């Protein structure tokens, strides 16, 4: 229950950090908030030779209103996202989701870049990145690139990140005030990983849904978008028939695991029920804003 020895490096810039990662040649790991990494070290599930602690890199923690997008630096802590007035105004569904992330002591330390890079299938942030069509900024010794969240998550704890790459930023397109949203989660205790969570946004014009977005966490090897359910809702009002069809499609698009906490069938059931609740809330908010 004590971590194995490692060499400790403290870069003072993103460029220095990725150079250290490249030098480590796969033996180096990034230490950000450490809220997932350190337990794995304590259990000795990982034995990296080098830890590159990015916490002292200046300028990586910010929440910035940048025209059509909100930019969030990789070192931003979950608590900052949860309580940011900018996020509350332009991405209220994200504020709601962040309150479900673990416990205060974890939210105080855990970073958004770490949560995205770790990619737990039941974590809220990867799911919100998918829901909100976020773009992720990534740095490497070769320079910077940008990747859509939908192309980033590859599977359980697996993302499209080379060993010498570092997530530096996530950029969310702002939600217009008229959009409706809902976020629903069931976990055994508040703050535990979701048994299942569903988030939805609805753009409603003239009483019908112009665009629906539905993201699901905890019910597959990664967070997923329920694209068939989204397509079924387009052009329709949210009534019992369209709601039932969307929930059935959402249920059908996931392949949950059975584990100690819940069976696969139960998780599917949750996806159906939570999709209905999230869509109901989104529809109500969109109608109220209209």
């Amino acid at each position, binding site marked *: 229950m004590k971590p194995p020895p490692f060499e400790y490096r403290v870069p003072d810039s993103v460029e220095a950090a990725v150079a250290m990662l490249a030098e480590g040649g796969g033996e180096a790991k990034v230490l950000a908030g450490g809220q997932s990494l350190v337990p794995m070290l304590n259990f000795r599930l990982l034995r990296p030779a080098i830890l590159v602690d990015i916490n002292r890199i200046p300028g990586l923690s910010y929440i910035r209103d940048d025209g059509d997008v909100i930019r969030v630096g990789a070192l931003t802590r979950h608590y900052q996202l949860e309580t940011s007035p900018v996020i509350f105004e332009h991405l209220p569904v994200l504020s709601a989701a962040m309150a479900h992330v673990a416990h205060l002591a*974890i939210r105080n*330390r855990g970073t958004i870049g770490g949560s995205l890079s770790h990619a737990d299938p039941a974590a809220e942030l990867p799911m919100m990145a998918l829901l909100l069509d976020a773009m992720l900024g990534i740095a490497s010794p070769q320079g910077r690139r940008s990747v859509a969240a939908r192309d980033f998550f590859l599977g359980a704890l697996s993302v499209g990140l080379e060993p010498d790459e570092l997530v530096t930023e996530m950029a969310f397109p702002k939600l217009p005030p008229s959009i409706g949203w809902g976020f629903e989660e069931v976990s055994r205790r508040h703050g535990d990983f979701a048994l299942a969570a569903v988030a939805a946004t609805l753009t409603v014009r003239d009483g019908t849904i112009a665009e629906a977005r539905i993201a699901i966490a905890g019910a597959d090897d990664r967070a997923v978008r329920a694209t068939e359910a989204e397509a079924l809702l387009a052009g329709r009002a949210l009534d019992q028939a369209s709601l039932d069809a969307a929930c059935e499609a959402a249920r059908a698009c996931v392949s949950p695991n059975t584990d100690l906490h819940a069976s696969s069938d139960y998780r599917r059931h949750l996806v159906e029920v939570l999709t209905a609740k999230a869509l109901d809330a989104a529809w109500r908010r969109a109608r109220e804003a209209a």
Partner: protein
Amino acid sequence: MSAHTIRVTVNGAAHERSIEPRLLLADFLRGTLGLTGTHVGCEHGVCGACTVLVDGDSMRSCLLFAVQLDGCSIETVESLGTLNDLNPLQQAFREHHALQCGFCTPGMLMTATDLLRKYPLATDEQIREGLSGNLCRCTGYEHIVAAVRAARDAR
């Protein structure tokens, strides 16, 4: 692995120590500084017993390396009050029988300290959600919730 020198302030007192990078903050506080008020339960961030404040924010000291905290200010349960001069939160725990064996209590107190600063805790549900990251195997939590409710009202 090479030793690193850190300077930290713990409960107002400055300390300088040379440490191995893998030394957890919990073990630094207990073993290196002899501040055994911080308890170590699970050592993987689940039980909350080792919660301390780092620059004012509650954090799990089993999920931080002491080497990361060079220049930081740390507060442990020893900072709150003394046997003969409990602080208001400790007094509330005492009056409401919010502890039995006491193992979880340092983490409960430090977590509640941060919760009381940051959240309205208007309802018992919110208090329970706030405390949900701290395990207690004796009390059944009712009296801990009552103590935090009393501390909230006295805030």
